[in-house]
């Protein structure tokens, strides 16, 4: 009897702890939901309800009709998709060469790629900014994209290389014996097998652009070029913060990436740990 009681106690404890952690994790998100639904006269409320009294979707309407949310969205999509495209195209090829070919300087190249992960953000941002000023690329979406490629590409190459390492070379060789050219063997055998790594690389480089604030803040000045992070931050002004609009915009920005993330996080983790274990 005593043992059963102890077991029940343990059960209660475990659940209480899990619930406490879940509450900690979810509470700020519930806050965003609550604030986005608040009517204008209750923005400075000291209530904690999730669905406030007189809840309204006004803030969402304002974001689409009165705020340049769609313009920010377009700019963010251009930058993020561009970064993802360049990241996947270059890394799928470069990673393959680094995985399969042995050449002078390969070890140094791999070391160098790892080293970039230790760069503080300003390490590349400052020189890139000064260089782009000379080339008149500051305050263009192309300039931001270059900076994002510089941050994302080393990681993308590393992920792709790590994944190609796990695909048996024999598969590629079998295709060669069957009369494929090396290029055909790569395109028809190795590349299709690497689909999971390609997805991770694409997602990672897309997220680099989608969620990046500190670089965009330096590189972009025009209001017409603001990306989503800059746009949402612009709702915080010295005198008044448009909390409801900010919260509504944030939720719209979060939803697609959070959904993607929940589906793909298992792969992301294996990509991260695989890469570093082999380093």
């Amino acid at each position, binding site marked *: 009897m005593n043992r059963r009681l102890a077991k029940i106690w343990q059960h209660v404890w475990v659940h209480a702890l899990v619930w406490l952690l879940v509450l900690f994790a979810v509470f700020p998100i519930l806050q965003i939901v609550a604030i986005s639904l608040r009517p204008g006269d209750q923005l400075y409320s000291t209530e904690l309800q999730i669905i406030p009294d007189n809840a309204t979707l006004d803030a969402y309407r304002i974001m689409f009709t009165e705020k340049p949310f769609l313009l920010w969205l377009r700019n963010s999509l251009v930058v993020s998709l561009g970064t993802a495209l360049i990241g996947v195209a270059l890394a799928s090829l470069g990673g393959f060469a680094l995985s399969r070919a042995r050449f002078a300087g390969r070890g140094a190249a791999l070391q160098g790629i790892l080293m970039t992960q230790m760069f503080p953000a300003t390490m590349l941002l400052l020189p*890139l900014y000064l260089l782009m000023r000379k080339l008149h690329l500051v305050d263009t979406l192309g300039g931001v994209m270059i900076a994002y490629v510089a941050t994302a590409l080393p990681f993308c190459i590393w992920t792709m290389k790590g994944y190609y390492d796990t695909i048996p070379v024999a598969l590629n060789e079998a295709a060669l014996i069957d009369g494929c050219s*090396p290029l055909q063997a790569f395109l028809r055998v190795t590349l299709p097998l690497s689909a999971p790594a390609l997805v991770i690389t694409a997602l990672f480089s897309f997220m680099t652009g989608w969620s990046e604030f500190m670089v965009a803040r330096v590189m972009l000045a025009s209001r017409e070029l603001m990306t989503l992070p800059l746009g949402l931050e612009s709702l915080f002004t010295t005198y008044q913060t448009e909390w409801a609009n900010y919260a509504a915009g944030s939720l719209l*920005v979060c939803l697609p990436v959070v959904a993607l993330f929940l589906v793909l996080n298992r792969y992301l983790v294996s990509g991260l740990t695989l890469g570093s274990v082999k380093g």
Partner: protein
Amino acid sequence: MGGTQRKLAFWFLLPSALVLLGVVAYPFFFNVWISLTNWNMFHFRDPHFVGLTHYLRLFSEPDFYRIFGKTIAWTVINLIFHFTLGLGAALLLNRNLPGRNLYRALLILPWAMPQYISALTWRGMFNVEYGAVNIILGKLGIAGVPWFSSEFWAFMAPVITNIWLGFPFIMVIALGGLQSIPKELYEAARIDGAGPVRQFFNITLPMLKPVLKPALVLGTIWTFNNLNVIWLVTDQGLPADKTHILVTYVYKAAFMYYRYGYAAAFSVFIFLVLVVIVKGYNRAAREEAY
């Protein structure tokens, strides 16, 4: 590898190599050069070589030691909480809990959100009058905390935010590791009379080491270099630039005060510190292996 294959590898590597040389390697060396010049707002057009002046200045500034110390504290506190909360959550979820997939998804949310949104949202929650944190404290009968006017609390605000942000990563990694530990090990331990605490220290922790070590290295780098959280939560270092870690301080020096040479030297210093730390981890791992 045959001749045509070597040629293919060359052409495959070329675009990546050129881009990396152009946007990573060249800026890196350019940054080192900037750090040796007096390039700033007043010498924007005519920077000249000043040698190691900036590096020497770093070590003679009293602010430098305060900020360096804060960066170490920031990194250590965050990592301790990330690992204890992350490991704890993983151990809880690894039991056969009803609804554990739902819990897992909910606990990952802080990691899945864009970091700048989390940081801005927490900034709002730390608002002294209308922020949720002080409201909750008030309901519990605790006096509100002056988050951004006291140096101590202005540091704790981003720390709390970053603990929230970072523990799910360790949780997911540890959960993956836990699932690959053979159940027989625990059965054998139970037969030998080992209690849950001994099982944890003699089986679970050693078996998790291979996944937790790379997570520790990555976590150290990410936390040490985290620009978003401090910058956005404390609104650029409130109160009055008192809340900075190395990276946010450099960012401000470069892009608000236009001290390019000085900031570049600072970046190089941060990079070297991280290289030393990571080398230290690797050496520790190697020595343990013998």
